[in-house]
């Protein structure tokens, strides 16, 4: 207990130190790199509190993809004079006190928990066999709370539509520019060798997600990262926003989800209910579709909209 307590304390102190540093450091680039390191540490924390699935998601999406996304806009930190106004000292003290109060309140909730910890774990375990999957988190995402997962993919799609609608006039329908003018040779080599391996790993992570930590979100992020690598190395340019194949890839997952969900009315009596014995194959079908769609959504979110001057 003592040695793990030492490790836990070290981890917490490092993370809080890194978080404060991210807020106070002047260089935006450094803050973003700090955020990515923070994501790595945070995924260690998820392992320590017995949530390896969340750890995988955090390392891929929370630290990795979000960091890359922030890096895309790091140059804009100095934009606009009004956005660089420094608040007065009393205001800063006030905000500090209020933020501290929120943290204290949350901390009190953590230190004084309810006498009986609320949990749905026994319920989840009870019905696990009927879903045919072994990983309870996958069962929650795909069976018990499938509606949440469905809405989530729609939210990601809506975010992508939002990003696309910020395309400047005249560039609508063009390809987002990802590759730099001259691609360094090592990057090209990495893209040529890593991408086939990465695609296998992404599909593997999704596949084992049925019974072990993993799943479509983690797998899709790896696939999206591989796609980004291909685009950055200039092996393939990003698809045009008007590309029909891209749009089909984006909606195939949600479409399968809706189709199976609606047919649940007829075969199992409720939206998104799976007929007895067919839960596993149906979940697999949805996951396969979602893997493609989410990978496409995340990849296009990372690529961003076409910029001013791009022509379709």
């Amino acid at each position: 207990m003592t040695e793990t307590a030492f490790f836990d304390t070290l981890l917490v102190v490092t993370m809080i130190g890194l978080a404060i540093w991210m807020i106070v450091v002047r260089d935006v680039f450094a803050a973003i790199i700090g955020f990515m390191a923070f994501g790595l540490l945070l995924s260690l924390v998820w392992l320590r509190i017995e949530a390896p699935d969340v750890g995988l998601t955090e390392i891929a999406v929370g630290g990795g993809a979000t960091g890359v996304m922030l890096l895309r806009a790091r140059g804009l930190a100095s934009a606009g004079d009004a956005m660089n106004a420094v608040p007065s000292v009393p205001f800063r003290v006030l905000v500090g006190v209020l933020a501290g109060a929120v943290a204290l309140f949350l901390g009190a909730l953590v230190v004084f928990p309810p006498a009986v910890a609320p949990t749905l774990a026994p319920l989840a375990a009870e019905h696990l066999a009927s879903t045919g999957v072994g990983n309870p988190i996958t069962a929650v995402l795909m069976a018990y709370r499938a509606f949440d997962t469905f809405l989530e993919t729609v939210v990601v799609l809506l975010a992508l539509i939002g990003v696309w609608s910020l395309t400047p006039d005249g560039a609508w329908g063009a390809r987002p520019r990802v590759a730099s003018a001259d691609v360094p040779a090592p990057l090209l080599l990495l893209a040529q060798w890593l991408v086939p391996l990465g695609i296998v790993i992404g599909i593997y992570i999704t596949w084992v997600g049925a019974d072990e930590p993993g799943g479509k979100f983690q797998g899709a992020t790896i696939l999206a990262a591989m796609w980004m690598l291909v685009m950055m190395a200039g092996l393939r340019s990003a698809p045009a926003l008007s590309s029909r194949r891209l749009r089909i890839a984006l909606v195939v997952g949600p479409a399968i989800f809706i189709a199976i969900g609606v047919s649940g009315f007829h075969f199992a009596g409720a939206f998104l209910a799976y007929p007895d014995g067919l839960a596993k194959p149906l979940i697999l079908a949805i996951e396969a579709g979602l893997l493609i769609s989410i990978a496409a959504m995340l990849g296009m979110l990372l690529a961003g909209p076409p910029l001013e001057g791009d022509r379709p």
Partner: protein
Amino acid sequence: MTGATFDTATLYGLCGAALVGIGLFGLVLDPKPIRKILAFNLVGAGVFLVFGVIARRGAAAGFGGDPVPQALVITGIVVAFSATALAVTLVQRLSSAATDAGQPGQAASVPPKGETGTPGQGDAAS
């Protein structure tokens, strides 16, 4: 271990609470949009962590934690990423609209030929 009120989960829960506080502070006070987005993600990380600690305390039936909040956190992380993507793009677009030319960062690679259609915009911004 049930008797101990201060276990590993509590430690990480307090860490999550502190992250929310630090993130809120940066979110309100930092004037730069990108850093606001960064701080917002910090708040999110803290909230997810507190949620994860609640999941850990709900460990039962042979699971290391309550799978329902864990699954919701996975959903939350992905949605937070989408929101970040939208926010970053909004800020990018906003700043390219505000400072017509001579934009630092990535937009610098764009030759100013793009805004031939909006000659009045630069005057309005300055």
